[in-house]
């Protein structure tokens, strides 16, 4: 498929205490990853507003990954539970407007799961690469591209 040469852009929103630290551990352990993910660190998955995801697609993300502490492990006790409840709605909403599950991923990665983080990141990148560029959003983003960059 033509998608093999496509390098997807993955915007990740991760909590500071579990996933960010887990990603640190992956680094400390020198576990190699594909270079397509960009992490934005927030204190807790509870801080992650669905508008972040929309903005990520507006800035050209082909896929989004949201990750935090496992249930019951939240540094702030319940932030991830509230986050999960929002996601249950939001992912269905995105899916209904045509932003499919294959582009919006969620995971629980703890501070000790460096290996899991690598598997999750690589898995998401592979999955989105297979999906190809997010043409739908790219088209509506085009209106915001600087004129000289518009393909006529």
């Amino acid at each position: 498929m033509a998608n093999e040469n496509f390098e997807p852009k993955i915007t990740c929103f991760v909590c500071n205490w579990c996933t960010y630290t887990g990603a640190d551990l992956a680094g400390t352990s020198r576990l190699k990853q594909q270079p397509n993910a960009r992490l934005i660190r927030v204190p807790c998955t509870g801080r992650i507003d669905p508008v972040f995801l929309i903005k990520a697609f507006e800035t050209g993300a082909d896929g989004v990954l949201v990750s935090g502490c496992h249930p019951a492990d939240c540094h702030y006790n319940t932030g991830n539970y509230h986050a999960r409840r929002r996601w249950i709605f939001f992912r269905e909403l995105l899916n209904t407007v045509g932003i499919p599950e294959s582009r919006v991923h969620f995971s629980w990665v703890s501070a000790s799961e460096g290996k899991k983080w690598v598997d999750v990141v690589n898995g998401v990148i592979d999955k989105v690469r297979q999906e190809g560029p997010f043409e739908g959003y790219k088209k509506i983003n085009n209106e915001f591209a600087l004129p000289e960059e518009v393909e006529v």
Partner: protein
Amino acid sequence: MNYYITTDEKLRELVRTLAEQKWNIISADKQGTRFMYINDGKDLTVDAKARPTKVSAKQFVFPKSEPLFFFKKEHDDLKLIDPQAVQQKTVLFGAKPCDAAGLPIMEKLFNWDYKDEFFNKRVENTVVIGMACDYTDEYCFCTSVGLAPDSEKGSDVFLVPGADNHYVVKEVTPKGAAFIAEFKAIFSEAAQGDIKAVSRTQPAPEKKFNVDEVKNWLDGHFESEYWSKAGETCLGCAQCAFVCPVCHCFDIVDENCAADCGRRVKNWDACQFGLFTKHASGHNPRETQPDRYRQRVSHKFKYYQDKFGETLCTGCGRCSRNCAVGIDIAEIVANIPM
């Protein structure tokens, strides 16, 4: 003035020709919601009996959102980039008199001091094919604001429906004449005698008020008690302004394209929004919804008159027809305790 004859089928053929020549072609949609770009003759909707579309055609000369320029920050420099120029030739099919009349009314606002080149360029590039209207409902009041179902104001070419899917075609402006000349195959010349009388099936809208009397009253009744009840149930949405063929308020905002670049955009705005007049301090001179409703009526029937000698209304009735809480501007104006 020259007359021509054409048919429904020929107009569709015209659409095909125009599409080949890369014109922008605008027609009402089949559902009667709005005007839209079409590229295929079969999508053309020219129907004198149709209710005016819910949203007027103004966005093709005054877009709901129009970039004025783009900017890019480069280290310690700021680069401005013009948007792509408005160039494409455009034709608007089937504008009712209450739609077409909006263009010359708005033209005054966009040219009284600063000449809005975006608006002017779009108007200049657009051929408006107006059409006599054969629709009347309780919301229509074009006759109250100096128009009529067969007003040609704002049209370059004017269609009057005849029998058997025929249209009598009038060239109204030189631009219209040039257009007809360019597409001679579509418009066959007709002698005065060839024009068959066309019978309307609907009565013209009744005259609900006199604009001069209304203006007189408005001149002296800014503080009238009447307003407190008139706008009381208004929910403060901008539906009325945005569907209106002549409401022209806009807001200018900067939007991010990416971290180091953005665009300055001119967006529709509306006086019924609480934010419209809200100051940065938090103070709002039009604090309540009745204050805002007074503004809407006053702008249409007084301020625009004061400034440009015209009523800022074509009597299409869209704002009232669509209002979720049944506010009818003609009723409110007609009920003014004069």
